[in-house]
C-alpha cells in the first residue's frame, strides 16, 4: 500500500512537471500571428540598418509601432491576446515550478540586483515608456520559458507582471499579471 502511494505521488510529480503542450502550441500560434503582423507592418518601411543618425532609429521605431498599433486596433486586440487564459495558466505554472527551491532564491536575488521597475499601469499596444530602466530577466527563468524569436523578449515589471515585448517597435505585445510569485 505504501509503495502504491509513493508510486502515485511520483506519477503526480511527473505529471506536474510535464508542460501542457496544448497551451504551449496555442502560445506559439498566437505569437506567430503577431510576428507575421509585425513583418507585414515592417514591409512598407525602409530596413533599419546601423546608422549614425539617431533620428532614423527613432523614426523607424515610431513608424513601425504606429503601423502595428493600427493593425491591431483594427483587429480589436486586447490584453490576453497571446497570454490567453490557458496559456497564462501554463506560464504561471512553469514560472512557479522554476522558482521552487534554490532556483527561486537566485532568480529573486537576480531580480533584486537588477533594478526593479515600477511603472504603474501597463497597456497592450503601448510603447514601453522611454527613460524607464529595464528589469533584467534572470537567465534561469528564461531557460524554463518558451523561446522567443529574435527581437522579442519577456520583461518583468512592477515586481510580478510579465510582459511580452517587441523591441524593434518598442511595444508591449501582451501582459501577464501576477506571473512572478511574491
Amino acid at each position, binding site marked *: 500500500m505504501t509503495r502504491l502511494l509513493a508510486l502515485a505521488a511520483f506519477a503526480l510529480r511527473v505529471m506536474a512537471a510535464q508542460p501542457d503542450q496544448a497551451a504551449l502550441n496555442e502560445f506559439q500560434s498566437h505569437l506567430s500571428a503577431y510576428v507575421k503582423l509585425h513583418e507585414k507592418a515592417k514591409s512598407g518601411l525602409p530596413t*533599419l*540598418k*546601423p*546608422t*549614425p*543618425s*539617431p*533620428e532614423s*532609429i*527613432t523614426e*523607424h*521605431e515610431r513608424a513601425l509601432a504606429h503601423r502595428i498599433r493600427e493593425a491591431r486596433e483594427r483587429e480589436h486586440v486586447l490584453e490576453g491576446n497571446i497570454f490567453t487564459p490557458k496559456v497564462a495558466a501554463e506560464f504561471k505554472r512553469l514560472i512557479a515550478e522554476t522558482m521552487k527551491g534554490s532556483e527561486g532564491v*537566485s*532568480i529573486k*536575488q*537576480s531580480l*533584486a*540586483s*537588477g*533594478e526593479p521597475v515600477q511603472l504603474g499601469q501597463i497597456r497592450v499596444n503601448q510603447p514601453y515608456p*522611454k*527613460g524607464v*530602466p*529595464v*528589469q*533584467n*530577466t*534572470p*537567465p*534561469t*527563468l*528564461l*531557460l524554463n520559458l518558451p*523561446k*522567443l524569436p*529574435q527581437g522579442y*523578449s519577456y520583461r518583468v515589471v512592477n515586481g510580478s507582471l510579465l510582459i511580452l515585448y517587441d*523591441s*524593434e517597435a*518598442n511595444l508591449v505585445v501582451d501582459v501577464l499579471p501576477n506571473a512572478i510569485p511574491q
Partner: protein
Amino acid sequence: MERRTFLQLLLGASLYRPALAQDLKLPLKEKSVRFAIIGDNGTGEKPQYEVADQMVRFREKFPFEFVVMLGDNIYGGDSPNDYKRKFEDPYKRLLDAGVKFYAALGNHDGPNQRFYKPFNMDGKRYYSYKRGNAAFFALDSNYMDPEQVGWVKKELSGSDAQWKICYFHHPLYSDSKAHGSDTDLRKVLEPIFKEYGVKIVLSGHEHTYERLKPQQGIWYFVLGNSGQLRVHNLKKSPRTEVGFDTDRGFGLAEIAGGEFYFQIVSRTGQTVDSGMYPLASFEKAKAAGSGAQ
C-alpha cells in the same frame, strides 16, 4: 608682488601639478592593444564631460584606440538630443580623433541603440571583435536567453585569442550596496567563462569602482562611475582587492603579449588603482580557485 609671495605661489603651483599631471602607469609597449573603459556614463551632466576631458588628456600620453562601454550609455530616453548630449558631445574630441566605441547594453538603454553606428554593435545585442592577441565579447546581460548563452559558448570555444575579455552591464560579483552580485547570471556564465579560458570580466551597473580578487581564476572589474556616482556605496568585503566610491572615473588598459596592464583614473586625474596581471597568474589563480559568494 613680493618675492616671497611669488615663490610661495610658484611652489604651490608645482605642488598642485602632480594631481593634474596625468601620471601614466602603463608601459606603452610596442604593438600593444590599448583601450579605455567607461560604464554608466550617459548622464549628459557635467561630471560625465569632466571624465571625458580627462580621457582626452590621458590619450595624449596613452593613445588608446578604442573604448569599451559597459552599459547605461544613454540615460533617460534616447531621442536624437539624448544621443547628442550624452554621447556625441562629451566624447566629440575622441570621436573626431577616430577612437571607436564598442557598447554593451545596460538596463537604462533602449534596445535599438544597437543600430546606432558609433556604438559599433552592427545591429546586434551581443557581438565580438578582435584586437591583436585579445578577443572581446560584448554581452547583453539584460536578457541572457538560452540563444545568447549558446552563442557565448560557441564564440569562446572557437576563439584562439590569448586574452578573452567579456564585458556586460550586470556584475557577477559586486560589494556595492545598491545592487550587489547577480548570482543567477553568475551561475549561468561563470562555468562557461571558466571552461573556455576567459581571463578578464568587466561590468558596470554599480556606480562605484571595484576590483575583485580572482574568483574561479577570473579577474573581475566593476566600473560604473563614468557619469553616475553613488558616494560611499561600496562595502568592501574580503574578496575586494581595491575599491573607490568617492568620485567618478574611467579605466585604461594595455595588453602586451602575456601581460594585462590597467589603470583606473578619477575625474580629477588621480590614479585610484593600477597594476598588471601576467597570463601565468591566471593559471595559478585558477588552480587555487575561490568560491566567494
